[in-house]
């Protein structure tokens, strides 16, 4: 046990933990997007879905605690790796460029620290707006529920939110563009045969997630909350 803890604190261990928490967060955003798409289902499908989630009781708290833990650990590891690189090269190059070829040094991989911190700050505002936002109470199949659908629609009628969210979701796409592939590589799944495939799947996944998430605020904004898909 002691050796395992020591191993997790090593360079290899830190990277593996970043990968595991990253994959956990990937699973979370997939379910989050599937949940969001309920907005386009039946009139009350989204509110039924959020009601069902909130009715999970202690199970929801356990899941949320795990999620908070994964987010904080992932962010801590990312920031500490970035911090250490400054110590590992005190004097930088006056000229530096990538050699290309098999290199994955891209705008996405080089800006992980920036996109990561933006996402972390965004998360605080996001939870404040929706999870802890004030909602009307409606009757759903004989029980009281929060009208989150109305809150979502009203929020995204504000251009600041609609375009702010869109911008952040584009950054999420970039973060996933390197993160997906990197997570699997950190978990030692890198193999010449599959590497290119995992990288390509990662890019497709990143685009799907970004487009899926940013479609919602833009659709609401540009249809004035009256879009055919919303009713």
């Amino acid at each position, binding site marked *: 046990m002691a050796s395992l803890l020591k191993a997790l604190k090593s360079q290899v261990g830190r990277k593996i933990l970043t990968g595991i928490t990253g994959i956990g967060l990937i699973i979370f955003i997939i379910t989050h997007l599937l949940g969001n798409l309920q907005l386009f289902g039946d009139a009350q499908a989204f509110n039924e879905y959020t009601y069902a989630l909130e009715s999970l009781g202690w199970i929801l708290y356990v899941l949320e605690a795990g999620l908070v833990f994964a987010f904080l650990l992932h962010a801590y590891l990312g920031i500490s790796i970035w911090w250490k690189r400054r110590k590992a090269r005190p004097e930088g190059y006056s000229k530096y460029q990538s050699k290309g070829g098999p*290199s994955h040094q891209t705008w996405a991989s080089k800006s*992980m620290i920036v996109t990561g911190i933006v996402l972390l700050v965004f998360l605080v505002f996001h939870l404040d707006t929706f999870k802890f936002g004030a909602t009307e109470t409606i009757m759903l199949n004989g029980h009281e529920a929060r009208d989150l659908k109305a809150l979502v629609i009203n929020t995204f009628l504000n251009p600041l939110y609609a375009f702010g969210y869109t911008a952040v979701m584009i950054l999420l796409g970039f973060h996933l563009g390197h993160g997906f592939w990197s997570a699997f590589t950190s*978990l030692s799944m890198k193999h010449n045969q599959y590497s290119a495939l995992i990288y390509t799947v990662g890019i497709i996944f990143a685009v799907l997630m970004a487009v899926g998430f940013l479609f919602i605020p833009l659709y609401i904004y540009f249809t004035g909350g009256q879009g055919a898909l919303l009713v």
Partner: protein
Amino acid sequence: MAEEFSIHLKVWRQEGPDQPGKLVDYTLNNVNEHMSFLEMLDVLNEQIVAEGKEDPVEFDYDCREGICGSCNLVINGRAHGPKAMTCTCQLHMRNYSDGDTIVVEPFRAKAFPVIKDLVVDRSAFDRIVEVGGYVSIKTGSAPDANSIPIDKSVADTAFDYATCIGCGACVAACPNSSASLFTGAKLAHLNRLPQGEPERKKRTIAMVEQMEEEGFGDCSNYAECEAVCPKGISISAIAEMRRNYMKAALAGEEV
């Protein structure tokens, strides 16, 4: 006769380990396209000696045929220059044209302190090898040939990793100054062979820990190391290192 041309150099000059360095401008008017990059630096040094105003530029080299790992240099921001799978000594001046400006810097990392000018101390790599980059064998009479059967594909892959010449370009090019490709290559070479099996766990843990102790940074999977490696070693070595390290740790291996 090959045509001679002129190039402008910005070369890192640094008197000693703890002294400040700076880029110094030089112009060479008699560069031949058949010269290697190091031969061009030899010509520069002849010019500096002839002028007699300062010491010649110190730079590392040995075999000058791309197999020893002594030459280094970051040339216009790229370790070993612009060509893939090429050492600085095998880079020829035909890759440059008249009037080009070339910035020449040492491999930069805290674990590779500058000794003088372009020469850095890469003994951190030796210490990583010392803690586990070996196999224990029976000494005395020579072992029988082919007494340990090894699958051809295993032997070939081990050889691919064994081609690492320990030049340090992976560290120099890594945005994090990580030595993961070097350490991973040494481990991937020895760990997959039956001769390396008895010490596999111990070796993996010891070398990974030594790598961190030397002050190299974390790996962020940029794969820039693979791009600059003069032997084209794949970052699969790094994935394998992680797998073996976690297996050893889970098996409770202590160092």
